[in-house]
């Protein structure tokens, strides 16, 4: 075994281990020097990113990869902790690590005057670890553990600006919602263990029967993870948390949110993949019922997100509602995929939905970064108190315009590519869905044009006369995201063919995931 092969083989574990260990090394490192602390965080995340890159090339070339903790081979009974990584896992891991690196670059100057930054970086790395863990684990209980880690660490991070009562309130709401949700996940895990004596996703997926208990587990998992992903009408925690956390934190919390979305995908497509086509009653197959439930919730999310965003005056909260709408688009796509399982357009919808995960992370992330930059220079949250910033903050304005066009899905930016795939597939299931999606994306444009005017245009306000452009590291972070947004917009096929299609295949071809483990015993 060559050195590189060994590295690839162990990269699965290292992706979790590196950020986890560096999280706990962080208090020590930050004793030395604050700049060393920043460099250390950035370096460790970059190392993790390199491992993810290595793993991605390997997984895309050679198919799923398993990593068993504490053993060389799989043995019965299958109660070991094991990670299984296929196309969708590496796709989500890439998104997580991109968001994390950008958040660290951004916090370099964004939080330079705050104290408690050693704990901040520790928690940030812990959220990244937990999101990566949720995205790579092959074990339902492990999934629960990482879910709880992400919930605790994110909650502490949301309360980072502890001087504001609202931050505490948002954090408390977040932890109540998340811990109750996580306990229900644990209950579902218990149900699986009671029936199949296994905690392994592949083993359960192979044996799953769709008894009454399985139905309960399915409902619990889908609703809890949907809530954690921000699906309406359980979305209320999301604008609170996103609106009150520091924007660099919002980025990593968003990666945890997207990891929950991944959880929904894994549960629907893999865990219940075998029994999706079985009919439950009245000759209605489960996939149609489930798909339409998701579609209805998704349409509600899109509508509520857009309509509520229109009346917000707090910029970050407004973007939070826009994030709810974007999550709605993703669920619309996967709902269509499930409802029309097997049809050619279902695959297109899934491609659109998965690509939209990446685009949503970048677009909403970019908007949050811009909102943070505005907050950094003006110290004002409300849109009513700011105006005329385009004179002094040229770059930020340009980045905001890019983010605005991307999130509203205007060509040629990245938001358009995924929404394009979604529109042109969901109309085949029902024309109304495409119409609502189209209309809401134009409403989104109207909302952010309002923000553009209110913050950047208009006469120069006397109290904001001496604001300066945001610091360089924040501009760099925004620039990276904006550049990625434009790049994906111009070369969508590059991403679609190399990352999204393997991810979609991994979801649709669930037997491969199962046989990789079950066949290996």
């Amino acid at each position, binding site marked *: 075994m060559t050195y590189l092969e060994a590295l690839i083989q162990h990269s699965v574990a290292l992706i979790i281990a590196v950020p986890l260990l560096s999280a706990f090394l962080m208090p020590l490192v930050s004793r030395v020097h604050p700049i060393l602390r920043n460099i250390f965080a950035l370096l460790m995340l970059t190392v993790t990113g390199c491992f993810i890159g290595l793993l991605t090339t390997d997984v895309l070339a050679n198919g799923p990869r398993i990593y068993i903790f504490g053993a060389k081979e799989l043995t019965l009974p299958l*109660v070991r902790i094991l990670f299984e990584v296929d196309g969708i896992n590496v796709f989500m891991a890439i998104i997580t690590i991109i968001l994390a690196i950008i958040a660290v670059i951004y916090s370099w100057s964004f939080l330079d005057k705050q104290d408690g930054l050693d704990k901040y970086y520790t928690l940030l790395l812990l959220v990244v670890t937990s999101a990566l863990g949720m995205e790579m684990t092959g074990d339902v209980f492990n999934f629960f553990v990482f879910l709880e880690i992400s919930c605790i660490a994110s909650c502490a991070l949301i309360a980072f600006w502890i001087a504001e009562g609202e931050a505490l309130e948002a954090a408390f709401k977040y932890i109540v919602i998340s*811990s109750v949700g996580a*306990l229900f996940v644990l*209950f579902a895990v218990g149900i699986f263990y009671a029936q199949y004596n296994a905690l392994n996703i592949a083993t359960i997926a192979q044996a799953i029967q769709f008894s009454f208990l399985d139905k309960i587990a399915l409902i619990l998992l889908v609703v809890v993870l949907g809530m954690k992903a921000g699906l309406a009408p359980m979305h209320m925690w999301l*604008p609170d948390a996103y609106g009150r956390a520091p924007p660099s934190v919002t980025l990593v919390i968003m990666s945890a949110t997207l990891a929950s979305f991944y959880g929904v995908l894994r549960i629907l497509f893999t865990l219940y993949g075998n029994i999706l086509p079985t009919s439950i009653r009245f000759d209605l197959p489960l996939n149609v019922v489930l798909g339409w439930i998701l579609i209805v919730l998704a349409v509600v999310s899109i509508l509520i997100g857009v309509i509520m965003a229109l009346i917000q005056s707090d910029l970050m909260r407004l973007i939070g509602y826009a994030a709810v709408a974007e999550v709605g688009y993703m669920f619309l796509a996967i709902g269509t995929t499930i409802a029309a399982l097997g049809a050619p357009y279902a695959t297109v919808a899934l491609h659109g939905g998965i690509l939209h995960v990446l685009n949503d992370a970048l677009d909403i992330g970019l908007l949050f970064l811009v909102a943070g930059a505005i907050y950094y220079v003006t110290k004002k949250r409300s849109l009513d108190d700011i105006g005329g910033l385009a004179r002094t903050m040229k770059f930020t304005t340009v980045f905001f315009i890019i983010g605005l066009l991307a999130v509203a899905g205007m060509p040629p930016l990245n938001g358009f590519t995924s929404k394009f795939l979604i529109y042109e597939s969901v109309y085949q299931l029902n024309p109304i869905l495409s119409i609502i999606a189209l209309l809401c994306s134009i409403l989104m444009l109207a909302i952010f044009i309002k923000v553009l005017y209110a913050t950047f245009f208009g006469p120069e306000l006397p109290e904001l006369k001496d604001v300066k452009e945001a610091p360089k590291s924040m501009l760099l972070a925004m620039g990276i995201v904006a550049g990625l947004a434009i790049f994906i917009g111009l070369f969508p096929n590059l991403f679609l063919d190399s990352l999204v299609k393997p991810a979609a295949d991994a979801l649709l071809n669930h037997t491969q995931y199962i046989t990789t483990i079950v066949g290996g015993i």
Partner: protein
Amino acid sequence: MIQYIPFIAVVCMIFIGLYAAMFRRNLIKIVIGITIIESGVNLFLITLGYREGGVAPIYTSLPSGTVYPEQMVLPVPQALTLTSIVIGVAVLALMLSLVMHIYKKYETLDVQEMRRLKE
């Protein structure tokens, strides 16, 4: 019938906890409600691990005459429960510290008053 009693207790505990979290106005009571849910789920896991006539999976102290390893209980539910309890303690501590800070800022523990973030 007797073997269902733990499960009934589990359901009762979860519903009591949910009731407390949803309809009690005091933040501390909401936290207590969540811990009750957690205990219910832990009880559920532990109940799953019970095997009629099983022995504890400790090699050195096996009772004489045990059929090895069929009679031995798989210790997974216990491991899960321990993990869950540890996590639960962390969550509980975090929630209580948040409640403390919220009381400092809002000067109330009424959840109805903790509504600065709405709409």
